């Protein structure tokens, strides 16, 4: 049986990937892990590795769109007879219709009891956020200054055991000391990057992303807002914006306000997420007449608590292995943050100057892991129709900060959603934003 080479899902809102080029020619041998082909998604190009050893056959033509999770080539074992292509490429003319996704509650006889247990564990773990670890592993890890969450368990059902902690300690001792977050960076000048969608009518929706994110993070929600003109601002030191030196929240707001003023809008619906939410509150406080509505998604500025470990962890991460756990802490269902997605996100953070700029920004705004600015008074003053949206499993900023907002504001709380409602329940947010705009 040849091994299928599957089009991977490297991006949260990716439905299919285009094969840009094959690194290996038809009929050539590859080893597991070798670069096999490049794909392009809406956001980035990416290299895909061979899933197994073998000889490559039946490759999908370059330029072809392949739905994720379906084969784009097959790998044959040495000496294995190469016959007809085992199946046509999905979406290809003459292809058998792809079966509808099977609902989860349909019994699957082939599933082993163990797999069931792992599923149960995964669901239980997801619900509780707890790690399966022995008491001994926990006490050893805590004595060694390791976070049990970061350890990979090799025991039954992924349980972290003594051996796993010992291995991690041994590994840490041989690994070079992690680079301290750079505290200085090469400051740049210039205007913030503003991008606009094509099409749409009516009052534009302007969006400000959160810390360590960028304008592309709105893509899943934008898919549900196509009828409106959309404007996205990249914060300083984020996305395509210059890495400005920002030493205070007021400076940050000043830069965003300048970008907003340059747009010369008569009216806009303002949407801000997390740090972008705090900036939006400040903007609404001074530009009330030009804002038709304000939507705050898990906004900063309403209380002191914030997950400082996650912020500094993301700034510090120099590789996918260290970035992944923090990215997963952003969402309630970790499954949506795939390894491929993490690699893609890391690729976008490879610029050390960008990480340094964000580290400095975090240090100014969230010293010692505390929100140093309080926007509750500003929020009280705002008469613009305002709604607050929060996920109840938010592990970055506690959703209960929402209860500090004045009663005149609407509140939408989502169960089973973390810090990224615009990604985790993008359709719901699209509906909320569309319904009353």
């Amino acid at each position: 049986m040849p091994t299928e080479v599957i089009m991977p899902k490297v991006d949260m809102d990716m439905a299919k990937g285009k094969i840009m080029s094959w690194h290996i020619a038809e009929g050539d041998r590859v080893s597991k892990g070798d670069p096999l082909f490049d794909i392009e998604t809406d956001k980035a190009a990416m290299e895909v590795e061979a899933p197994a050893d073998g000889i490559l056959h039946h490759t999908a033509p370059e330029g072809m769109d392949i739905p994720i999770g379906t084969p784009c080539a097959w790998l044959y074992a040495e000496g294995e007879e190469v016959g007809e292509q085992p199946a046509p490429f999905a979406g290809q003319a003459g292809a058998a219709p792809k079966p509808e996704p099977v609902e989860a509650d349909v019994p699957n006889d082939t599933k082993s009891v163990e797999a069931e247990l792992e599923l149960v564990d995964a669901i239980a773990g997801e619900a509780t956020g707890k790690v399966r670890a022995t008491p001994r592993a926990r006490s050893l890890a805590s004595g060694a200054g390791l976070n049990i969450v970061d350890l990979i368990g090799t025991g039954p059902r992924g349980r972290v055991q003594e051996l796993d902690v010992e291995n991690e300690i041994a590994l840490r001792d041989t690994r070079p000391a992690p680079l301290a977050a750079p505290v200085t960076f090469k400051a740049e000048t210039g205007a913030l990057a503003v991008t606009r969608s094509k099409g749409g009518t009516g009052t534009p929706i302007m969006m400000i992303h959160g810390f360590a994110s960028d304008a592309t993070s709105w893509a899943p929600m934008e898919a549900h807002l196509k009828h409106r003109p959309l404007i996205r601002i990249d914060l300083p030191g984020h996305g395509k914006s210059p890495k400005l030196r920002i030493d205070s929240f007021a400076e940050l707001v000043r830069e965003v306000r300048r970008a907003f003023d340059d747009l010369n809008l008569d009216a806009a619906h303002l949407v801000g997420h997390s740090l972008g939410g705090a900036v939006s509150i400040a903007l609404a406080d001074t530009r009330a007449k030009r804002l038709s509505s304000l939507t705050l998604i898990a906004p900063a500025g309403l209380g002191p608590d914030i997950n400082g470990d996650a912020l500094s962890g993301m700034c510090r991460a120099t590789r996918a292995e260290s970035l992944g756990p923090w990215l997963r802490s952003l969402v309630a269902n970790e499954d949506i943050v795939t390894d491929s997605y993490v690699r893609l996100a890391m690729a976008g953070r490879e610029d050390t100057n960008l990480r340094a700029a964000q580290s400095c920004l975090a240090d100014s705004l969230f010293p010692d892991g505390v929100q140093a600015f309080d926007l509750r008074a500003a929020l009280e003053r705002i008469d613009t129709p305002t709604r607050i949206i929060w996920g109840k499993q938010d592990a970055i900023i506690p959703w209960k900060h929402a209860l500090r907002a004045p009663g005149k504001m609407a509140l939408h709380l989502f169960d089973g959603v973390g810090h990224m409602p615009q990604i985790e329940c993008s359709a719901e947010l699209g509906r909320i934003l569309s319904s009353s705009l």
Partner: protein
Amino acid sequence: MNMHSKTDLRELSYAEAIREAMDIAMARDERVILMGEDIGVYGGAFGVTGDLVEKYGTDRVMDTPISELGGAGVAVGAAMTGLRPIFEFQFSDFATLGMEQIVNQAAKIRYMLGGAVSVPVVMRFPSGSGTGAAAQHSQSLEAWTAHVPGLKVVQPSTPEDAKGLLLAALEDPDPVMIYEHKILYKMKGHVPDGYYTTPIGKAAVVREGKDLTIVATSIMVHKALDAAETMAAEGIDAEVIDLRTIRPMDRDTVLASVRKTGRLICIYEAVKTLGVGAEVSAMVAESDAFDYLDAPIIRLGGAECPIPYNPELEKAVVPQVPDILEAARNLAKGRV
């Protein structure tokens, strides 16, 4: 000839060791008397009392009627009034008939009389399976009495401890229950000469090891040691603890071992549910040794059924060496 080393190597059976203990005690203290069904001329159902009636007479080696409640009651009364009776239940299963005297009288009297009177009675319970005696003559009911404050409960696994614990029991001012395993009666082992006691409430580390701890009672100690030898050849170094006393339990010895190995198997012949292993497990889970556990605790105990008559089934319902090996391999290799 070195007389001393000859003495050291002296071997007796478990039954002989108990008889020797009773003989020594009766010779040095005339308050010690024996009571029980068929312990006189017949020498006891398992021959443990043997010919002691010939040596001490029927005043001190008394056959009691077939009434466990009556016999046990007389023993409790005799203890209260100054004697040191050793009462033998013919089978530990029949002690169910004497429970009123054990639980409501012997265990309570010291407390209810404000400490003015104690009950220094010793009761012996031949117990356990393996003799083909089926459901009513094969049980391991030690957890019944171990649940009662006021009683001390021991389970010797060797001839040496059978003698030492019986003599210690006679020194104790309170009621002591001795559960003897019927299969062990014929087992031979070194028994020191003369008078000595084995401390009640003190477990014995009978094999030192570093990979896992086996806490066993009675006959299971021997099965655990057998299994430990096989494991050693496979590179698993098991520590085996003979609990010896189940009330009061030797917490320090068990916890120290679990802190060292991080893995625990409890093995006992009695029905697994609510047995001695449940108490050992809970004791560890409630202690600081919990932080040293690197795997779940395993209990191996009797099946949830009466002991069957069929010899194959009789073996199948209690832990055997292969069961211990399988559990230990899984535990040591991180598969549980």
